[in-house]
């Protein structure tokens, strides 16, 4: 597709229609002709970039051809989406785009659109493929938030909910969830199996604030493992069977309170952890909840249901005081078996909770770390004295500049808690830890003019200095980091094999960068440095060798001046 040809085509057509409209009256002209194309948001896909043009009710999929074509722009796909986009996200596998729209609400005419979810599958997108056909799931009411199932290569479920977003309609039911079965086509409410379904969860005063899709859990040993939707409200946690979400009649959910109800005080969930290490083991069917203000952690286990219960399981709740308000937690394997590891910054400690007996083991830490990430898979292959079946956690976000990060070996945390941490000294407090796919590396981001590459196999940390605050993007193939100054023209590629930075320059200020597989040549990778000003431009680089004289960067502009669908 040549953008130099598209621009006059659209402009001419618009001018002609405008002239016609002035002659015949403006009432019949589609509204998008009155609105300049503007990128509402951009979303990284595995094989391209999705540019949401809400004004024109479309999303533009932009990809690049492979090295043989000099990383030229592939023919783009312009796909219609619902009106008034409130959320655009990619699936974890990067091949699906989900666009949630509120429609023309409240509808005032029969032509006004209802709210909807548009799902675009780009798995088979190829340079010369026909236009992709999205799936449109109509909704009966607008909702501003969308949670997408992160399990598996292709999501099975998505749930739209109100959450904490500002109210935009006169009256709303914030406990209403709209659940989409993404493995089935849309079906209106008159069908025997509607898709999506609308479900109001039982409420004791709270409303859903965060949703978590669990992996399969053996919540009842005599039944197959079941997936649950965990709904955190301001005051409790509700468990909903995803596997039975579309049963008729609808299965009720189960609400687990966090307070006894004997006083006016309430506790607000601050996060959950799910133990799903072994979906075939009932002992690995557990959920832990921490709150914003209480020193207890709540562990939920499962057992057979009471007679007459609608669900296949019955949750039981346990409280364990960890001595301070936990800031992060995860289920871990230790030398003494499964534990819930809770970080308690006020004690500069971690507390290991035995979920069956509520026994606790205090592990004093060298700093008040607030976050932990399990890095067992990255550490274990290197044979760093990690015993089989035990985990290693990376502790980060310490209280001081000198906190650095620490590796917490859980192989001796219960037996020798005093000898289980190893500090990696970093001169900055780490604010964020980024995964590097397919490697033993982590990228540690700080608020200063440095970021770090941590090699978990060798426990080495390499600082990389920057001239100012930069935004980082990790290539999905795990080969490089992209660093750029937002709204600046400087760009750098850092090869993770040798940490050699390659300085680059674009002609336009960069809003975002996307390292994507090329269409028709997935072994080649291109980098899109997007400039969202005006009708959106991009500089396309050979991502693996951006200074290759055979494949110089290409500057394209007016990406949104494609034909509307």
């Amino acid at each position: 597709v040549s953008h130099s040809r598209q621009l006059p085509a659209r402009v001419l057509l618009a001018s002609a229609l405008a002239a016609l409209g002035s002659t015949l009256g403006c009432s019949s002209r589609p509204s998008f002709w009155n609105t300049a194309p503007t990128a509402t948001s951009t979303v990284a896909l595995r094989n391209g970039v999705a540019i949401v043009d809400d004004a024109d009710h479309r999303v533009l999929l932009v990809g690049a051809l492979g090295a043989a074509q000099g990383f030229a722009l592939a023919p783009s796909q312009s796909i219609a989406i619902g009106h008034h986009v409130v959320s655009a996200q990619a699936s974890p596998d990067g091949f699906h785009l989900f666009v949630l729209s509120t429609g023309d609400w409240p509808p005032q005419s029969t032509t006004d659109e209802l709210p909807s979810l548009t799902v675009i599958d780009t798995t088979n997108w190829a340079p010369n493929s026909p236009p992709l056909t999205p799936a449109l799931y109509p909704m009966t009411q607008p909702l501003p938030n969308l949670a997408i199932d992160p399990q598996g290569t292709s999501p099975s479920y998505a749930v739209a909910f109100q959450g904490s977003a500002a109210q935009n309609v006169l009256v709303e039911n914030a406990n209403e969830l709209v659940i989409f079965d993404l493995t089935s086509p849309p079906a209106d409410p008159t069908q025997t199996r509607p898709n999506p379904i609308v479900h109001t969860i039982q409420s004791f005063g709270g409303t859903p604030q965060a949703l978590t899709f669990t992996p399969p859990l053996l919540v009842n040993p005599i039944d197959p493992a079941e997936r649950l939707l965990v709904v955190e409200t301001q005051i409790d946690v509700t468990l909903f069977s995803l596997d039975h979400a579309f049963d008729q009649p609808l299965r009720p959910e189960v609400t687990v309170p966090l307070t006894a109800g004997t006083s006016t005080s309430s506790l607000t969930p601050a996060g959950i952890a799910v133990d799903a290490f072994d979906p075939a083991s009932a002992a690995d069917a557990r959920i832990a909840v921490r709150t914003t203000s209480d020193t207890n952690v709540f562990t939920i286990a499962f057992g057979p249901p009471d007679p007459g219960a609608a669900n296949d399981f019955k949750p039981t709740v346990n409280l364990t005081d960890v001595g301070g308000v936990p800031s992060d937690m995860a289920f871990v394997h230790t030398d003494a078996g499964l534990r819930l590891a809770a970080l308690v910054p006020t004690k500069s400690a971690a507390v290991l909770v035995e979920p069956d007996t509520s026994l606790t083991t205090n592990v004093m830490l060298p700093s008040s770390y607030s976050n932990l990430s399990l890095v067992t898979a990255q550490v274990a292959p290197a044979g760093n004295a990690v015993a089989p079946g035990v985990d290693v956690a990376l502790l980060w976000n310490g209280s001081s500049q000198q906190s650095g990060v620490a590796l917490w070996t859980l192989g001796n945390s219960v037996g020798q808690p005093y000898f289980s941490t190893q500090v990696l000294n970093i001169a900055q407090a780490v604010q964020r830890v980024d995964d590097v796919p397919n490697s033993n590396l982590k990228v540690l981001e700080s608020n200063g003019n440095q970021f770090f590459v941590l090699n978990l196999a060798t426990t080495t940390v390499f600082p990389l200095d920057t001239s100012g605050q930069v935004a980082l993007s990790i290539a999905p193939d795990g080969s490089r980091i992209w660093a750029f100054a937002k709204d600046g023209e400087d760009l750098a590629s850092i090869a993770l094999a040798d940490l050699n930075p390659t300085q680059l320059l674009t002609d336009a200020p960069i809003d975002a960068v996307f390292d994507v597989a090329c269409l028709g040549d997935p072994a080649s990778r291109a980098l899109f440095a997007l400039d969202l000003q005006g009708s959106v431009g991009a500089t396309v680089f050979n991502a693996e060798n951006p200074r290759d004289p055979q494949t110089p960067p290409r500057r394209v502009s007016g990406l949104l001046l494609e034909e509307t669908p």
Partner: protein
Amino acid sequence: VDNGDASAAGVDAADVDAGDDGASDGGVIDAASAIPAAPDSGSTAPSGSPDVSITPDGSYALVRQDGVAAITVIALADGTTTTVPLPALPTDLTMSPSGDFGVAVLRDTSTVVILPIPGIAADPTLLRTTTISGEIIGRAIVTADAKSALLFTTAAPVAHLTVLSLDATASYRTIVLHAPLLAVFPTADSANAIVLHNITPSNGVEGAFSIVPIASTLPANIVSLPAPPTAVALAPLGDRALVAMSDPTTGTYGAYLAKMPSLQAVPYVLASPPIAVGIVSGASDGYIAQDYSEGRITFVDLQSDGGAGGARTISGFELGARIIEGSNP
């Protein structure tokens, strides 16, 4: 819940009062008014509360009074009292499970006195005495099958437990344990006993208990504890016992599951102080209630060999009771 709770199973004040063999087994009537004046033979002025044992059918009460060398038998139907003179001051009085005889212990003479009921009420001379030579005995506990009496003392640092056969032979054997006794709990099958020990803490050992075969001559198994024992519960079948321990000063809390006849002891660490133990025989579980702000109970699988899954703790009962399955308003 069966009657395996510590308080019902025998952890009464008498068992844990090491300073007085003759503490009460507990009674429900005030028999003081029925107690006659002390007989002449070696008695001193009566003191303390009366120690009363009542037959299960409620027909007779036996009363022991500190400082009185006699047992008073009271026919509860008409209040008739019979004084049974004894050769020395009784330090303990107990009743057989069926109420067909009482047992008094005379520590000063190491003598056990069997009081047949109701015969003794009519003829105070019907008593039968057995002297346990060379042993200090101040307490007696009749086993559930009424075939033996366990004799011991908690008033002196004596590490012996004597098993007296209550048949006509009145034979006995003395089991040498490894520490002085604090309390004795015979199992329901009369084959074993759990013995709590009164020890001087040292080297991290704060208490101990033994699993003692009493129906056989196997040696006892003593288990040292990092905290003093606080409660015992016995299974109705006599094959399991739970022993709780607690030391708030060090924050050491736990329980042992004693298995019989293997004499194996399986330890369980608790997260908070135990306040009561019991056994739910139908569920094959033991339970340990704990002192915790949100309430806490640990359930122990009586068939477990310890390890993962052997114990499960629940807390926050009120929250559990409020878990609700429901849906649309």
